[in-house]
């Protein structure tokens, strides 16, 4: 079932990823994440004193600001902000700094498909760069259902517009544990097999959704190894950021 993709990738191949941390001078943490031509810059400021109104003062508050490439922020940006906020809230340790606000600003530099996963990955790397305490990292990937029932990984914008349905998936990263009992298990299942976030567009059959999940999980495991090695590299070179 060889499918021809416009840029020559196989259906299971994601675009090359470029991640750089510490690009902004004044932000507490910053990262840029590029998947193919989609590029997003994330900056983290925090923790700052005080929470927004109606937020629980016993926990830290996460605030997300999404800046589109051109034009004013509208409804799609609000949706992205909400998804990002909920995703990041689930990975941050909120009890460490109660009654504080951490702001994450996302700037879209270029949108060539899979924008939200790119932003989630960038935000995660920026949080690591800022030293915000996290339970684990979030690794995001996009899968889509093309005509003819093939599943494509990491679609570009043209592919995203042509397909019937696509889904953004966020998984926890794979664990490397120093404990003798191995990785964390919850109810007998490995923690890294859980899903943090799933956002779908369009209609797909239930079986197709499960195959997307499987494909996405495999890709996320590979991506989390890449993330781990790139984050380790940077921390080694920069003693002021480590520890």
């Amino acid at each position, binding site marked *: 079932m060889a499918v021809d993709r416009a840029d020559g990738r196989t259906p299971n191949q994601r675009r090359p990823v470029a991640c750089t941390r510490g690009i*902004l001078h*004044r932000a507490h943490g910053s990262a840029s994440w590029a998947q193919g*031509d989609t590029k997003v810059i994330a900056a983290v400021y925090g923790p700052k004193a005080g929470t927004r109104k109606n937020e629980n003062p016993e926990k830290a508050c996460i605030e997300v600001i999404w*800046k589109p490439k051109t*034009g004013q922020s509208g409804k799609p940006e609000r949706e992205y902000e909400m998804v990002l906020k909920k995703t990041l809230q689930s990975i941050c340790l909120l009890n460490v700094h109660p009654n504080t606000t951490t702001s994450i600003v996302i*700037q879209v530099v270029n949108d*060539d498909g899979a924008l939200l996963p790119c932003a989630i990955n960038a935000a995660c790397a920026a949080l690591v760069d800022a030293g915000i305490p996290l339970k684990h990292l979030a690794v995001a990937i996009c899968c889509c259902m093309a005509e003819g029932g093939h599943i494509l990984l990491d679609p570009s914008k043209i592919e995203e517009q042509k397909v019937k349905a696509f889904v953004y998936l966020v998984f926890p990263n794979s664990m490397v544990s120093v404990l003798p009992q191995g990785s964390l298990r919850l109810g007998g299942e490995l923690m890294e097999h859980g899903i943090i976030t799933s956002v779908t567009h369009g209609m797909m059959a239930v079986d197709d959704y499960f195959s997307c999940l499987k494909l996405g999980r495999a890709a996320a495991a590979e991506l989390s190894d890449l993330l781990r090695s790139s984050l380790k590299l940077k921390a080694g070179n920069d003693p002021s950021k480590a520890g």
Partner: protein
Amino acid sequence: MEQRLANSLIMTVNEKKFIETALLSDLRVDGRRPFDYRKLSISFGREDGSSEVQLGNTRVMGFVTGQLVQPYRDRPNEGTLAIYTEFSPMADPSFEAGRPGESAIELGRIVDRGLRYDSLFTCLNFCSSTTESRAVDTESLCVISGKSLNLYGNRNLVDASNVAALAALSTFRRPECTLGENGQEVIVHPPEAREPLPLIIHHLPVAVTFAFIGKENVVVIDPTHHEEAVMGGSMTATLNTNGDVCAIQKAGGEGVLQSVIMQCLRIASVKAGDITSKIKSAVMLKRYDLKLIFRVKYSEFEKQVESYNTERSLRKIKRHNPSPAGYKH
């Protein structure tokens, strides 16, 4: 922590004194001389019309978009240029998302004034070559270029955003349009069908900012955040390489001697020449796609340009088939 939250940097008296005293011996806090610019680097995004400029630690991104609209009734031959600036909360946690503050608006106005009133470029009217009268036909359409700048960083935003605007406009290409058969409708050709056209730019107005620090009329160029907090007044001069002064902005602040202003303008014209040549060489490199694909040493420049030109024209021919390689123009 509070320093980072406040919009204007709160400086201690010691810091202020240090900066002023150092300037008396022609030394600046970051090691530059009074009339040295910070390192300027210009890079472009994937699309035509997107640029990112880094001036020291200040980063500005510029995007150009174009839209087909009806022209104003009193100027049917011209399009319009609109500049939108946005200070991202990424730059400084005290910037609010949403409405631009007054400093953002002032910045936008300075850049706008430099670009607009010198017939910087002619925006286009589409008239069929047969009838001249179509030029004044109110139903004909004109192209506007909108620009938006996103800013983050370490101050002297005016100069950096001006360069970003110029770089983005130099690389922007608008789709080609022709009039339909009946002469009433305009067909916009997609970039695959016809090569998009670049904007016609007559000259590049470059903004140079000066800060006046202390009582002895000490002048520095390209102030950093700390110098801006200490300065008594500032002036931005927009000039081009032809020796024209496009705009000057000196809004309040300390009074300055006329001789000092003349000296500043003379220095500014030299700096404008440097910056213009940097912009032009960056745009040229982008046109040959060298930075994206190859890391070229200067000695191999000629050879690569030659082979790249031929490869680019080959790619243009092949554009109708999806090319297997991942490179796009």
